[in-house]
């Protein structure tokens, strides 16, 4: 594993008798897009606030960009950008004035502020509307401006709390695309929380699954997906002899083989390239009529992890 942008060790936060975050151990690689996923009340937003030094942990510790969140929160905030769960803008200021204000906060020179505002508003398709008061703007436009504001000072790490919550699917897709472009263009680490698993699957390189304050699993997205049902290749046809099955069983991509009434089912070790397997069957003179591939999904992994955790809770 390379350098870490975020590291937490047994990080916990309680509110009275409620445990919002329970002994969280996270490792976010530098340059990754890291998704904290989980149902509502999982402790994702609290985790973000703890990482930004806005909340003090009840126990444990965390570091962001090498700075301790308890003692060096100012230095973390100097190097980070954040959009918390509400897209908050100054309604009586124009889009450009909103960015200008934050540019001044980050002590960016007037020339650089103008150039940066043009670059970001242009990239997000807001340049033509720069002079408008943001008061009447739709939610997705406001969210885009919030993202522009949060990366205006070129932070090393960006924290986003539910960046597409409350947006319609089209707007969410647009914001998601903007985010992906911004993350790539700015070469920064992104830590985001979301309940939208499809979004996490598209956007994130790494994810951590949380439920009721507890980390259920964390790591590269491909690895996390393997917690769910294995991807399966169903091959409909004839002529699948024992020799053919033996040949297939030697392939490293295959975890298990089972016979079906009209063909074979191959359980794969992950989302691997299946073309060589089909070629092997064809070369072995099997008659292949149809090939169906069921991909592993974050959704399946998430469901498995959350259900397992609930079962364990019930047992204990």
């Amino acid at each position, binding site marked *: 594993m390379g350098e870490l942008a975020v590291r937490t060790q047994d990080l916990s936060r309680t509110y009275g008798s409620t445990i919002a975050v329970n002994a969280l151990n996270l490792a976010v690689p530098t340059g990754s897009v890291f998704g904290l996923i989980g149902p509502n009340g999982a402790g994702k937003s609290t985790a973000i*606030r703890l990482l*930004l030094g*806005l909340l003090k942990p009840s126990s444990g510790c965390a570091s962001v960009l090498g700075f301790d969140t308890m003692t060096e929160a100012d230095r973390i*905030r100097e190097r980070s950008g954040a959009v918390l*769960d509400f897209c908050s803008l*100054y309604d009586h*200021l124009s889009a450009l004035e909103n960015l200008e*204000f934050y540019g*001044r*906060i980050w002590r960016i020179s007037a020339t650089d502020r103008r150039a940066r505002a043009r670059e970001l508003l242009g990239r997000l398709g807001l340049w033509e509307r720069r002079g408008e008061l943001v008061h009447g703007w739709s939610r997705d436009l406001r969210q885009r401006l919030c993202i522009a504001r949060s990366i205006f000072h070129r932070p090393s790490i960006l924290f986003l709390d539910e960046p597409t919550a409350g947006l319609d699917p089209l707007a969410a897709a647009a914001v998601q695309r903007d985010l992906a472009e911004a993350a790539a263009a700015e070469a920064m680490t992104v830590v985001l929380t979301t309940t939208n698993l499809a979004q996490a699957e598209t956007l994130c390189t790494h994810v951590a699954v949380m439920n009721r304050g507890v980390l259920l699993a964390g790591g590269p997205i491909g690895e996390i997906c393997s917690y769910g049902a294995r991807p399966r290749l169903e091959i409909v046809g004839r002529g699948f002899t024992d020799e053919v099955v033996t040949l297939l069983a030697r392939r490293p991509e295959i975890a298990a083989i089972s016979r079906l009434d009209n063909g074979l089912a191959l359980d794969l070790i992950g989302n691997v390239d299946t073309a060589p397997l089909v070629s092997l069957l064809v070369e072995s003179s099997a008659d292949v009529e149809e090939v169906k591939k069921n991909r592993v999904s974050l959704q399946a992994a998430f469901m498995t992890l959350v259900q397992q955790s609930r079962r364990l809770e019930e047992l204990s």
Partner: protein
Amino acid sequence: MIGDAWTVMCKDLRALRAFRSQGLSGVISTLLILILFGIIVPWRLGVGWAAHPVSLLLWIGLPWLSATVVVADTFAGERERHTLDALYVTRLSNDAILLGKVGASALFAWLVALLTLALSAVTLSLTGAAAEMPFSSLLILATLSMLSATLAATLGAVVSLRASSARHAQQSAIGVVLSLAFLTFLGGQVAAQYFPAFWRRMMQAGPLGSPSSPALIISIVGLLVLEIVLLGLAARCVARSRLGSS
């Protein structure tokens, strides 16, 4: 930190100007203050208006009125609109945010008082009474107004920081101001009976006698001490950890 406070103050003043120019009630209330205390009162009372003890209360009370209305929105209102969250996640220190917000409210309240004072001077000069009004009195009134505006803004910030909503903050701030005015007025009258004769004479002369009058110096020092105490209290109330905790 001063530069950061200045940035916050400029933004707040800008937002305030935009907000008040859009709301008709804000413009009307400011105009009413200007007409009532800048034209009608000095015109009716003549030059005695400036040195009159009741007028003196006005120059101290007017900034309180303006500041408490404005400052209530600074923290509680921004918290309601979630723009405070966006400020708290930046590199700004708590002190810079506090000073910027108090500064904006105080400056606004002081400008309203100064404008009223200038309008009063014009009214007096038009009625021919200005010649009897020493410039030092205007200067003293302007200084007292400034200190009063800053004090009101800081007290308003303390109330606003602890309030759950902007409306709650505004109601609490007005309640605090009225209670303080009532207590000062009544308490002052009761306490004055027990003051030594020298103190009573000094208080009756008022702070406008000369820039070195003991009453003026006591007023300024008293306001400054109160200001520092309240700023310290407000600084303790600014806490990033008061953000939501979902």
